[in-house]
């Protein structure tokens, strides 16, 4: 009890002493990602989807990094979105009227080579390559009868942060209406993520497994900007 009073007292002192630290110019925003394949919300393992190429597949895992969220003002907030786990992320953004929403799909180069990280970047999240340092920016796993890999696996671990093999992509989305960020209301932007666009012209039978940086990963990453669209603002 005494401890709590002291902590509260300290908090008041801190606010008095540092008025500039708590800004009034930030508002909260929630991004909710809805993952679709063949225009249906994806279901883990059980449902069979079809690539635009006509190859059947199921999905067991879909995770990716979203960072530097904002419109022209990148922040250091980094989130790991999990289609079968936390698919909503909450952040603070500078107050204002937003016409567009922009974020990086992936993790900035520097954070790929700066040693052990924590939070969303903790190697515990199973998104860091142990033998060829760097983050998997986007991970899609499942099975397909078209896959010649062991157990008909699909493993699309798209990563690479250096030079030509960079796989992070900036996504800029037009908003259907003006988004007002302020302290009065926390809006939720619902973003649809279309896996049909991820596959685009790619063939599962040709490349069921992509687990190293390089041309294939880069080509897959080029589809990232096609996958995202804003459905609504709540």
């Amino acid at each position, binding site marked *: 009890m005494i*401890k709590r009073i*002291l*902590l509260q*007292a*300290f908090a008041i*002192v*801190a606010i008095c*002493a540092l008025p500039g630290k708590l800004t009034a110019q930030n508002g909260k925003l929630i991004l909710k990602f809805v993952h679709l394949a063949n225009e249906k919300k994806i279901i883990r393992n059980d449902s069979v989807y079809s690539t635009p190429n006509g190859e059947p597949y199921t999905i067991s895992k879909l995770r990716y990094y979203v960072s530097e969220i904002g419109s022209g003002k990148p922040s250091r907030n980094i989130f790991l979105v999990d289609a079968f786990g936390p698919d909503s992320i909450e952040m603070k953004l500078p107050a204002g009227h937003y016409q567009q929403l922009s974020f990086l799909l992936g993790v900035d180069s520097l954070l*790929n*080579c*700066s*040693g*052990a*990280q*924590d939070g969303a970047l*903790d*190697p*515990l999240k199973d998104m*860091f390559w*142990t*033998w*060829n*340092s*760097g983050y998997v920016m986007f991970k899609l796993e499942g099975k397909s009868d078209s896959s010649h890999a062991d157990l008909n696996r699909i493993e699309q671990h798209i990563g690479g942060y250096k030079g030509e*093999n960079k796989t992070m992509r900036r996504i800029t989305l037009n908003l259907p209406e003006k988004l007002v960020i302020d302290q009065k209301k926390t809006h939720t932007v619902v973003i649809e993520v279309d896996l049909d666009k991820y596959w685009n012209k790619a063939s599962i039978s040709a490349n069921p497994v992509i687990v*190293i*940086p*390089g*041309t294939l990963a880069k080509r897959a990453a080029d589809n990232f900007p096609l996958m995202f669209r804003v459905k609504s603002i709540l």
Partner: protein
Amino acid sequence: MTLVVALMAALLGAAKDDGFGPYKPTPLKLSIPKGWPKPNSDIFAKNKLTEEGFELGRKLFYDGNLSKDGATSCGSCHQQFAAFSTYDHDLSHGINNTFTDRNAPSLVNLAWMTSYHWDGGINHIEVQPLSPITAHNEMGETLENIIAKLNADSSYSRYFKAAFGDKAITSQRILKALAQFTGSLISSNSRYDQWKNGTLKFTPVEESGYALYKANCSSCHREPLFTDNSFHNNGLPLNRFGDAGRQRITGLSSDSLKFKVPSLRNVQYSVPYMHDGRFNDLDKVITHYTSGINYLQPTLDSILQKPIVFTERQKLELIYFLYTLTDTSFTKNKRFAPAQPITIKH
């Protein structure tokens, strides 16, 4: 105002006390040997080197609980008496009677390195342990299990609190502490170093060997670290694992069969040699450079295009020089040994 803040901070500090006393880590300074370049600035930039961090790193380095079988520690394959390589083993032993795919490199002067592993696939000292810890033919463990095991071992709370300010055990703290230990493994007191510092004289044979080294080996095994951290194809035939080295990391065919230049420091103890430990003595290594190189390989290093010629006597002179790089004050330094005797599990 200042007084109020100080008072509140003190009270807050007291409120946080968990019975292990206040957090007061002892800063450590990485001592840079005379005449050496500055270490890689990235190493301890965001990982403040402290006595407590080093001690936690040492405890973790020698703890078998970092592996699936509870008995295979970092120190199992990186033995101090072998300059932190695996003595007399071409490949090391992982859990469940497995073999590694490459020779365990000596852990020495890592703070001067720009990448790690024979193929340079690791870009920072802190993330290196992830590879041996998780590899099925090395330690075969997961970070989740390690954190659970360390949380169950009451001896660790004190170490984590002392090193990082509270008892929380995270992967980041484990990796940073390990980096504090391994990054501090500096070998700079060999006969060669003492000769450079003018505190002893080389024998005539060692002097001749040094001249041979300067003329034939020093462009890659550059003084004073005896590596230039670069990657080269030194003309070894592809091994039975089809190990293409650097190409696996860059995907470039121009990097086929290139491997990182290993330091020659303590080379007497880091036997056997090459990325797969194929040569079990220095004579075989030198013979490779005089008559074993495969000249048909397109990525063979340009420096090695012309055979090196040594007489039998010159080979010996070179080996005698290489022995001057042995640093027993490093291989016997108690600070780098386990803090407590290791219990052998039967």
